[in-house]
């Protein structure tokens, strides 16, 4: 038997005789018990409680916001919220239906621009992995992921708004697409790179050209990953406000149909707006 001094031998009466008869005689099972009297156990329990308490404390702001939203916001939830225009300043009632339509239009346009561009770039990056061009594009995409969104808005202001003469949805869409593009490029590249190489070899072994391999094997197999990337990009773009400050700004009205401003849905008003900003806005959308 070992002569470890770490075991308590207080309960051991005699010497080796007892050890031979009872092989566990040298082990003090009291040492193995969990008990609050032992400093190690106490320390463990206190720390566990502390960790749990801190977790709850950290969650307090989240729950506070959620509660406020559900309680106060839920009281006002109604269909009118999604179908009506904003009320006049300092009045109650109305809704933000036009904002929803505006988001759908701008994000939709941005998606139409970025998805083909981004996915095809992802295909190129996954296929031509080591060329200098691929390295440069990948670097640029990674840098652009951290691009401040208001700068995208300023860029679109200079490039589109000044050239077109006014705020417009298309300018907003272009600003949003600058922000969506790097995400789509990088996620589609990694989704395509994750297609097992043996599948690509199988396609080439049958005699498929690179284009056929990419379109018929790589893209369909990588589609779930690519769709995830698109959804992430769309979710980001839908929540952006800064790039829209310089490009589409805002409107309190629905989209005008014939140069007239609709103050209420379905009811074109004969009142023409005299403000130049609003006139430009109406003119673009009606053209």
């Amino acid at each position, binding site marked *: 038997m070992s002569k470890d001094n770490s075991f308590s031998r207080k309960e051991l009466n005699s010497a080796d005789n007892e050890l031979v008869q009872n092989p566990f005689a040298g082990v003090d099972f009291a040492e193995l018990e969990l008990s609050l009297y032992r400093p190690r156990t106490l320390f463990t329990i206190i720390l566990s409680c502390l960790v749990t308490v801190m977790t709850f404390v950290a969650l307090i702001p989240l729950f506070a916001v959620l509660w406020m939203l559900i309680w106060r916001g839920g009281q006002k939830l109604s269909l009118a919220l999604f179908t009506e225009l904003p009320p006049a300043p300092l009045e109650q009632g109305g809704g933000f239906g036009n904002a929803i339509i505006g988001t759908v239009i701008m994000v939709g346009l941005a998606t139409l621009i970025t998805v083909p561009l981004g996915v095809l770039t992802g295909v190129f990056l996954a296929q031509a992995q080591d060329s200098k061009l691929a390295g440069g594009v990948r670097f640029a995409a990674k840098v652009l992921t951290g691009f401040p969104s208001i700068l995208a808005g300023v860029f679109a202001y200079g490039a589109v708004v000044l050239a077109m003469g006014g705020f417009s949805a298309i300018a907003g869409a272009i600003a949003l697409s600058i922000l969506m593009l790097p995400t789509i490029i990088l996620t589609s590249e990694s989704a395509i790179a994750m297609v097992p190489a043996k599948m690509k*070899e199988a396609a*080439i*072994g049958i005699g*498929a050209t690179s284009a056929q391999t990419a379109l018929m094997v790589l893209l369909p197999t990588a589609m779930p990953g690519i769709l995830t990337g698109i959804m992430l990009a769309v979710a980001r773009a839908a929540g952006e406000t800064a790039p829209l400050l310089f490009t589409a700004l805002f409107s309190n009205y629905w989209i005008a149909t014939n140069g007239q401003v609709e103050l209420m849905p379905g009811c074109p008003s004969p009142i023409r707006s005299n403000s130049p900003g609003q006139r430009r806005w109406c003119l673009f959308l009606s053209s």
Partner: protein
Amino acid sequence: MDTEVSRVDSKTNGTTSRPLPAENTDDVVIDCKINELYYGTFKAVRDTQIPIKKNSITAFIGPSGCGKSTVLRCLNRMNDLVRGFRFQGHVKYRGKDIYDRSIDPVAVRRYIGMVFQQPNPFATSIFNNVAFGLRINKFKGSKIEKVEQALKRAALWDEVKDKLNNSGLSLSGGQQQRLCIARAVATDPEVLLMDEPCSALDPIATRKIEELMLELKNRYTIAIVTHNLQQAQRVADKTGFLYVDTTAGGRTGYLVEYGDSKQMFEDPKEKHTQDYIRGEFS
């Protein structure tokens, strides 16, 4: 001596008019002569000349790292995918060097198909897997007939005929490998290259694939790489033994002996071959 063959392509609309030969003729379908083969600065293979004869099974055996798969992949230009690949020599398919500048490697692979070690069906339905080759060649005839024919030739039809729309990945390993074989024969290539096709399979599936190879031999020319000497004895007509040469400091493969399988396994001429076959090194 050239038999009249039409491939599956848009011009002939998929008719195959290849008559089954009455006996094994002596054509050399692929004459592979490699003087030196490099991956970058690494010399992988030297001095290897192997003729692949028509309607026969030629096996490449040898220890690991001796270049068997490299030589096999040369036969249909799959090594083009590897960066830094270059070689001196020629690979003549029916007399024409397929590494000539004027030859399109994609077209070569439609005549010389390949089955890989790990089964690698595409992530689509069984039908689409087999029809893939037909689609890339813009085949205009009845796909369902060709798919059925290919699956029957691969001895898989009975097992999958009522679940053609299930994913190719839902089959067992042996079935997936037979699916890959069906996919390779759907376009009626002339030569089938198989790189250790049974190494990832259990013995029963291996047996089935070996029987399949013996049937396919009548219609196609087959070259296989195998680690399994008994398999080479069972299926191969001709065998080439490659070994590793470490004298120059690197590991360069070369052909030690080539001949009829029976003669190679019963009475090998070279000492390295004798040692390998009798199991002194593997």
